[in-house]
């Protein structure tokens, strides 16, 4: 039996609202990508029937629209939580304004992406590269909401979509908005592929229980990492 003893501590990293946000977001994105792809390129499944017997494409679009509202408000909630949540969920983790964040980004590229050195990454929450990538996805979320609701204004007279009415003339027309919306969908798909793989990777290599941390909220962190974290004197973000 191969075994070893490593002093570790359990850290409550992801609070319940963050976890809920994550899973609602994941479900919404899955639903939106599947229905969105079908809306962009619907299969001609049925022949020899009349329109009044069927409504499946209308249902697909309905699911897309409901998911998009859920996605939007969930996203707004996450932005709010970035200002009130714990140190690991705060906004300053996501925008690399400090030198130490950039230093860690380079480290993560060396250690986890290229695997050329074996140095330990000290972050307890997201590492700096992950945070930065999430920040880019937030920008994509924003663009996707703008373009999506921009197209939705044409068929809605309610308050919220009307706020996005300026998007269509700004981009020159519905065609351009739809094209951008469609291209950005691929951003979500590519992100999801890499994201899921990296969760496996980190759990495999670091064994901090990152997969289950998004269910239970707790992570196993090595004692020495916590020591360094608590004695930190430089001006790095706290959740770092």
């Amino acid at each position, binding site marked *: *039996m*191969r*075994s*070893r*003893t*490593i*002093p570790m501590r359990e850290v409550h990293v992801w609070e319940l609202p963050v976890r809920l946000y994550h899973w609602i977001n994941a479900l919404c994105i899955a639903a939106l990508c599947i229905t969105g792809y079908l809306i*962009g*390129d*619907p299969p*001609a*499944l*049925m*022949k*020899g*029937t*009349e*329109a*009044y*017997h*069927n*409504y*499946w*494409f*209308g249902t*697909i*679009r309905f699911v897309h629209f409901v998911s998009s509202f859920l996605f939007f408000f969930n996203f707004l909630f996450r932005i709010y939580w970035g200002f009130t949540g714990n140190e690991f969920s705060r906004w300053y983790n996501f925008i690399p304004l400090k030198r130490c964040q950039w230093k860690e980004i380079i480290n993560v590229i060396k250690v986890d*992406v290229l*695997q050329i050195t*074996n140095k*330990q990454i000290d972050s307890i929450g997201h590492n700096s590269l992950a945070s930065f990538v999430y920040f880019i996805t937030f920008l994509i979320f924003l663009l996707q909401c703008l373009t999506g609701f921009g197209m939705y204004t*044409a*068929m809605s007279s309610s308050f919220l979509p009307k706020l996005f009415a*300026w998007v*269509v*003339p*700004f981009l*020159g*027309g*519905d*065609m*351009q908005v*739809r*094209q951008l919306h*469609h*291209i950005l*969908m*691929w951003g979500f*798909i*590519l992100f999801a*592929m*890499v994201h899921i*793989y990296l969760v496996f*990777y980190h759990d*495999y*290599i*670091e*064994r901090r229980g990152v997969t289950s941390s998004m269910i239970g909220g707790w992570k196993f962190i*090595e004692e*020495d990492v916590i020591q360094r974290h608590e004695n930190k004197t430089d001006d790095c973000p706290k959740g770092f």
Partner: protein
Amino acid sequence: MENKQPSFYDEVKGNGISRKDFLKFCTTMAAMLGLEASGVGQIVKALESKPRLPVIWFHFQECTCCSESFIRASHPIVANIVLDKISLDYQETLMAASGFQAEEAYKSVMAKYPGEYIVMVEGSIPTENEAYCCIGGRSALQILQEAAANAKAVVAWGNCASSGCVQAARPNPTGAKPVHKVISGKPVINVQGCPPIADVMAGVVVHLLTFDRIPQLDGLGRPKAFYSRRVHDTCYRRANFDAGLFVDSFDDEGAKRGYCLFKMGCKGPVTYNSCGIIKWNDGVSYPIQSGHPCIGCSEEGFWDNGPFYQHLPNVKGFGIETTADKIGVGLGVATAVGIAGHAILTNVRKHREIANTPEKGSETQTPKEL
């Protein structure tokens, strides 16, 4: 005004149009403009009492299909007046005058009715080299800017004048620009379409005359009364879209049953126009009713929005026949290959790490040392 100009009604009476036909026309226009019942009276009064609008009608880089459309209005009273009598003012295609006389005609309109005349433009304006379109030795740009300076409003007929149309399609050799991009300080009404629907053109003229102000416009400068709804939302085939019944190729079973043309590249879902309601040629039909997908001619840059028979446009800079989906799948495969490579590397590393862990390890280690 020096002498009393005849009103629209005076003009049509002379043309043998009965009072009844005149009232029918006014009612139709009120309905098209989306006015309430009292609007009919306002239109009747305006057409009876107000003098005909002084109009200068320019043809720049265009094909005259807007004029052609206009004279085919189902209620041709306005077109008759504007086009028949316009030779009094200035309209390059129709006026009898030529040379100095023609120049004189348009200069006299500008001198006689400053701030009152309407400039109507068909066609785009070249800016790469202004010489691509010259009339009477002056460039389209010079002529338009001079005429617009004292105009009450500018009406941009069709896609050319509203967004450049085919002349402005890539690579746009003449640097063609729409009216609203070359003049400033004047209201511009973009009456979109290639060509616009005749009754829409008439409606805009009636609105200008009746209410003395430009109609309410959308974000792209188009009159909301005619361009606030998508062709898709007013399409009689819409039920087939919601039911998921699509034409897969021309002449297939679905095409015969009148299914939705979305997969045939129909741009109805991204096009704002009244084709589905007013239709063409006295309400006879419109492209989708005739079995052809909408090409989106009332939208900006519709020539560059990918092939007409493909609903997703090609991505610029990636060669022909490359849609966002093809690029997306390519990137997806590349990502999967990257992940596989990374996973192999990770496993080599992991294997080494496990091998280095002692069989009976109990001493404290940090992963860094492994």
